[in-house]
């Protein structure tokens, strides 16, 4: 299995369950390839960072401010709706 295939399977393992055969081949490769082992840790970090970012988005959304002009435009549109 090439490093390219390993990187594909490591990525896919986030979206789907790998087959037993894929899992075993992946493990064999990771035992002997430091570069792919580092890549695996980086993918885990990226996944964790994305989750943290999404949660931050919910809690710190108030740092984003809807522009006053947009706010008034939307208010006008809502009033036409009534």
């Amino acid at each position, binding site marked *: 299995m090439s490093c390219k295939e390993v*990187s594909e399977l490591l990525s896919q393992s986030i979206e789907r369950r790998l087959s037993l055969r894929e899992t075993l081949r992946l493990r064999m490769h990771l035992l002997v390839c430091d570069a792919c082992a580092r890549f695996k840790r980086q993918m885990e970090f990226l996944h964790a960072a994305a989750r943290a970012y999404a949660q931050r988005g919910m809690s710190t959304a108030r740092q984003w401010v809807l522009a006053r002009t947009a706010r008034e435009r939307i208010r006008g549109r809502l009033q036409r709706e009534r």
Partner: protein
Amino acid sequence: MTQLSSADRWLDDHGDALYGFAFQRLRNRDAAEDLVQETLLAAWRSRASFAANSSERTWLIGILKHKLADHWRHSARQPSEALDPEAVDDLIDQTFDMTKGGHWRVAPSAWNNPDAALEQQQFWQVFVDCVGALPPAQAQAFSLCELDGLKGEEACKAMQIAATNLWVMLHRARLHLRQCLEINWFGNGPNG
């Protein structure tokens, strides 16, 4: 308070939050503002469905998520080379040496204390910039699956692509992001 004033109040109370949620995913001011408007209009039209004992914010964000999915579905329908996974993408060739058994051209480096990065404001700026620099289809796939937490099949439906295409997009998005973070944060960043 009459019912008629509730849409105004949603705008006052939740406008910034809705805008922030949309902007972080679209990274486009006009599109994010449009979605806030569409969300509030849809909320107003379906106000009867709001359960009085639930959180307004959660209800509105739920509507916004649907609007975001519609937005992605619509943009996926636009003919775009970036949506074709077979489209020429140098990334794989740049990353792996296919003449030498698909090994890394430049091996991923060891990242120093990555968890500490999550606590740093500057890291998130780099993260947002890296996601923003992705080709559009990859940014969509990554946003839907990793930021919005959609399941694979839901993301496929939203983007109107097959699962294998989605995996290709996500693989490329992750290779890009890995490289971008390595260069801009773990290499020369304050942690480097």
